[in-house]
């Protein structure tokens, strides 16, 4: 993971891709979002989605999963170079989450994150606050998911 000082507005990073299988869609839906179009192929076809569709919360959770894996990859690389590792803080929330198109069984979604703003926290000056637009694009190149996320990012030298 990077420190606040390393983060530049406009920086974009591909964080990985994930194939939503019918089994994974149904398993998540059965636990958290058992609406009929997330559980059954035929019900999905009859719905506005036109097929068995992943819960939007499943899509968001998978994006988080890939972001964390990417952060851990960056941390390992930094450690291998002998650099200090930044441990990111929690997120105070997000805005503008858009489920733009359905994610259907078999779709592979590639996620990316692009920095939109950065500032030092007034209440916690040892932390920076970074806003990034996270997006998901399917195998046909269609944007299916978008979110403006906020996170606390540690400063390398908080006293400088």
């Amino acid at each position, binding site marked *: 993971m990077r420190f606040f000082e390393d983060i530049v507005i406009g920086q974009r990073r591909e964080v990985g891709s994930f194939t939503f299988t019918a089994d994974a869609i149904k398993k998540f839906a059965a*636990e958290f979002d058992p609406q009929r179009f997330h559980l059954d192929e035929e019900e999905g076809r009859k719905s506005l989605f036109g097929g068995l569709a992943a819960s939007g919360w499943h899509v968001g*959770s998978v994006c*988080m*999963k890939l972001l964390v894996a990417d952060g851990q990859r960056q941390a390992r690389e930094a450690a291998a170079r002998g650099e200090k590792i930044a441990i990111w803080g929690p997120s*105070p929330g*997000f*805005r503008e989450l858009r489920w733009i198109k359905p994610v259907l069984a078999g779709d592979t979604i590639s996620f990316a994150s692009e920095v939109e703003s950065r500032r030092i926290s007034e209440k916690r000056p040892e932390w920076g606050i970074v806003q990034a637009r996270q997006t998901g694009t399917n195998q046909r190149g269609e944007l299916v998911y978008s979110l403006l996320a906020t996170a606390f990012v540690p400063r390398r030298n908080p006293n400088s």
Partner: protein
Amino acid sequence: MTLSFEDFPPGRFGTFGPRRVTREEVLAFAAEFDPQPMHLDEEAASRSMLKGLSASGWHLCSIMMRMMFDGFIGRTASLGSPGVNELRWLAPLRPGDDITLDVDVAEARVSKSRPDTGIVTFRGVVRNAAGQQLCEMVSPIIVRRRADPAAGQAG
């Protein structure tokens, strides 16, 4: 009875829960979707900004979805949601918490592009057993309107 657009006038809709969130499910969700130390490891979590083990925010969102499903969406003519306008994580969800969900209808309007449906914008607030707000979400859901009997006769 299935709930239609007309059943969601602006104002308080209801309170749902309480729902116990166990340590096992917090760890299981974090392991699969959000394996940051603050969600998985007591020792690392105690040193984090959240000062103790807490559930992933996406887990809290997913539980809120389930509470909404059990509370009313499961018997609503819902066609899905286009997104979430705003979501704020206000305080950590701790393992063992009993959470409740207050749901208000912030806005309800007929869809211009699909006049047989309406867009109901909900505001949901999750609280723990101590009454502390953990999360606030504002999100629209597309809901079918009740069939118009006059239109039915005309057709």
